[in-house]
């Protein structure tokens, strides 16, 4: 049942960061895992044709897996990112996890502290669409929740609002512009800032 997990490396340890919490996991060669010290029998099997049949390969959208954890059955999808990142989907919930060995986890935590940032996040297009209206001017002060731009997509107007009290530093879109998903639309400075 747990053949796929029973490699020659006994008791590999990982730090799993998920939904803002840290979990210590040990994957043992006997088909059990220790999650925050609590043991469970675990079996993970791919449900994609790729791995089971060796004939097909599905990419990009995440592979299907069946996890049995002390018998409880979970059908999930997983997509691996860089640096121990895993994007998981289970019961319709999409959750990102970071899996590192304990040493890598310590290093990453230290470097993360240095990069803390308090600026107001810029507005990006949440979907491809057409800018219908720009409700602010450069230099204007806005309150959290004020409408900044209206983007039309799928025939619906979507109002994009200021994420926090701020000053409009730079406007990068005008009415009639077709914008791509993620495209930078408005940059903010902190309220009062030059």
């Amino acid at each position: 049942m747990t053949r796929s997990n029973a490699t020659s490396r006994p008791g590999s340890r990982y730090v799993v960061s998920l939904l803002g919490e840290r979990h210590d996991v040990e994957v043992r060669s006997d088909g059990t895992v220790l999650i925050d010290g609590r043991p469970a029998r675990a079996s993970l099997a791919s449900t994609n044709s790729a791995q089971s049949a060796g004939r097909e390969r599905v990419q990009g959208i995440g592979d299907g897996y069946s996890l049995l954890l002390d018998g409880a059955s979970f059908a999930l999808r997983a997509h691996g990112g860089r640096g121990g990142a895993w994007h998981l989907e289970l019961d319709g919930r999409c959750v990102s996890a970071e899996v590192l060995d304990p040493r890598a986890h310590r290093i990453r935590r230290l470097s993360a502290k240095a990069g803390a940032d308090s600026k107001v996040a810029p507005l990006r297009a949440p979907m491809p669409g057409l800018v219908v209206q720009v409700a602010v001017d450069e230099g204007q002060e806005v309150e959290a929740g004020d409408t900044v731009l209206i983007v039309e997509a799928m025939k619906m107007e979507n109002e994009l609002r200021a994420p926090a009290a701020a000053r409009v530093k730079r406007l990068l879109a005008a009415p009639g512009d077709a914008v791509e998903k993620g495209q930078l639309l408005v940059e903010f400075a902190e309220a009062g800032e030059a």
Partner: protein
Amino acid sequence: MIKSVLVANRGEIALRVIRGARELGIRSIAVFSEPDRRAPHVLHADEAYPIGPARAADSYLNIDRLLDVARRAGAHAVHPGYGFLAERADFADAVTAAGIVFVGPAAETIRAMGDKTEARRRMEAAGVPVVPGTSEPLASAREASGVANEVGFPVVLKAAAGGGGKGMRVVRRPEEVPGGFNAAMREAEAAFGDGRVYVERFLDRPRHIEVQLFGDSHGNIVHLYERECSIQRRHQKLIEEAPSALLGEEERHSMGAAAVRAARAVSYVGAGTVEFLYQDGEFFFLEMNTRLQVEHPVTEMVTGVDLVEWQFRVASGQALPMRQHEIPLEGHAIECRITSESPFDGFLPATGVVGELEIPGGPGVRWDGGIARGTEVGLHYDPLLGKLIAHGAGREAAVRRMKGALRELTVGGVSTSAPLLSLIMDEPDFRAGRISTRYLEEHPELFRAEVPAATRRALVAAAALLEHRAGPGRASPRIRRAATPLSRWARVGTATDSPRPNGR
């Protein structure tokens, strides 16, 4: 009986109509825009012809081109589905003028009911209760403000030509009227080419209940009971049921009778729906949709009637196959709209390519879909990917069945409404039938649902096992780049994610 039909639509409804035609031995003729060349409705029709580029105005809304295909393919009839040209009287006129049967009511009926103010006038005359408001379009934002003050806030600004929530704005304070009026006008102009707007009193916590109607060319009109469509987002229905969760037998009867009265007032022929707003025992005429509705399957599940079959029979001049008292009402049906949206991210439209597609099965479960593996979901058209329908002996059984079906449904490659729908099936107010059109705003907890402990534990185990499988090196300190977040993978349940149930 009609011999062949051109289906002037795409997606799940085109496939639904093609299936209905096939079962009656009617040759089905599909049309497709460039990106739809490989769509299921093209594959499953008997014939299919190109009608232009992606933009709807150049393809699915292009009347000349549709009529040209209809003539070349020798189409005996045209079925408009819903949306696109379904409620365009000029299309019905053009089809009829070309000597082709239009599967739907007469152009005059569409015209009368399509004009909201005209519809109000007629319904008032027929003794059908209507919501207080203007029966004429408003000339300006100024006039709108005046009427709004008379009717009393909140008010709703609506496109005279509209439907489906487009060109619609709720305004709660006097100072918001001008902005709302302009937005409604702009959307109405863009969506229908008709920017006229009118105003009505806005019911605060109404339920949206509608009655399915059917008329034939012999003067028979019946109703097929009601549907409750209160669970909406952005005025777009998300979950529909038949019958209504809480309507009593007497209310059912009087609402059905009012709907039949409304249909008689316009000598209705074909499938139609009268939408009511219901609040505190009162119901008001909202609008009449002169076409098949998206949510018609729930009515089919509880009555056993095939509404598309009836459409073809009526369009062929046959009389309705049943009289009012012969129409059964058995069990309870629920429909969930599976749309390409990110429900936990303000219902933003989602795009992608459909990857894995697993359709639930078993007793009482129906899937009306318009997608297949490989279908590209873009922004050109409606986000409806398919409809999941569950029927059970009662509402509780139907809800439980739907919950299981949603759990089995897999649509890979694009975000859908399914996870939110799953949560709603478990939510106590929904379970108890305590719903209104404000259901979603009143349940923000749905959008910040905690991940249960067992699920979290499974996710942690899965992540560790996946990394373990991927082999040594991956989790080592040399790889420094932080995880790149994918848009679909929200940091569910963290404090930074504020719920945006209505996208604003």
